[in-house]
């Protein structure tokens, strides 16, 4: 990639794309596609990669359509992430996504595959309970947890994708852990 193109700001790319330059839109896509996909994944959860890709496609179609009316009042990234967040949350609400069901037989099978079957089964049950509890948290907490623990994002990156200051993202994680701790205690897992 030429240096001049690498240094071009998002605002510059948007200005060129608004003038009909498809290369500029393609560059915007390259800059943001992975992050849009990760944000969508963090909202939809594990096992929904295909749906996250659908969300990413819809987001870029919307961005392309709305680009000419974008006036730069917000950062380009924040604007794209906001569209992604809304799109993914709407899809999740419509489809009432739940984690893929894992029955007791499957858990037992997983447990017997390794040494210490009782302990393995207990761990699998506890992990399933934890994932159930996560589903009941507010969307931003769920997304923060998945970004940080599953997708390996730093707190700073999670904050950027969620459109909040870094301290707020930290407090989302802290509060989410507190809430999960309380829920696990209620379900009889006082020693995790």
């Amino acid at each position, binding site marked *: 990639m030429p240096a001049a193109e690498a240094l071009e700001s998002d605002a510059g790319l948007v200005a060129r794309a608004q003038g009909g330059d498809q290369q500029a839109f393609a560059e915007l*896509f390259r800059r943001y*596609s*992975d992050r849009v*996909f990760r944000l969508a*994944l963090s909202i939809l959860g*594990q096992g929904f*990669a295909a749906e*996250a*890709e659908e969300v*990413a*496609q819809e987001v*870029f*179609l*919307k961005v*392309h*359509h*709305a680009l000419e*009316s*974008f*006036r730069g009042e917000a950062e380009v990234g924040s*604007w794209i992430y906001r*569209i992604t967040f*809304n799109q993914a949350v709407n899809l999740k609400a419509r489809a009432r996504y739940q984690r893929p069901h894992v029955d007791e037989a499957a858990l037992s099978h997983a447990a017997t595959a390794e040494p210490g079957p009782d302990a393995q089964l207990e*761990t699998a049950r*506890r*992990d399933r309970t*934890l*994932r159930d509890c*996560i589903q009941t948290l507010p969307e931003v907490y769920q997304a923060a*947890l*998945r970004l940080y*623990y*599953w*997708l*390996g994002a730093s707190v700073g990156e999670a904050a950027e994708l969620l459109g909040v200051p870094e301290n707020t993202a930290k407090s989302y994680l802290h509060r989410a*852990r507190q809430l*999960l*701790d309380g829920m*696990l205690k209620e379900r009889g897992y006082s020693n*995790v």
Partner: protein
Amino acid sequence: MSEMDSRGTEIDGMLRRSLGGPVPRLSPEFERRLSRELRRRSEPSSRYERILLVGYCAFSVATSVLVMRGHGLGWGLTATMTLGPLAMVEAARRMRRLRGV
């Protein structure tokens, strides 16, 4: 380490274990699919589709006007009730574009 800290560390470890797993990536053909979809949506509708749409609109408006006039409604009210919804659809479309989403 206080009990609260130790509990926090335990939850942290549990989350790492429970949520850890392979991270999916965008499929390689995603960009191509998006380009195709963009091209499809930006193509102007065909001449045949436009003629069909205009014909349908004209027929609907004419039928509505005939029925409303047949029931004794005045021209003003008839025009408002026939063209008002069309104007609202167009206004909503413009507002969505202005909001940028």
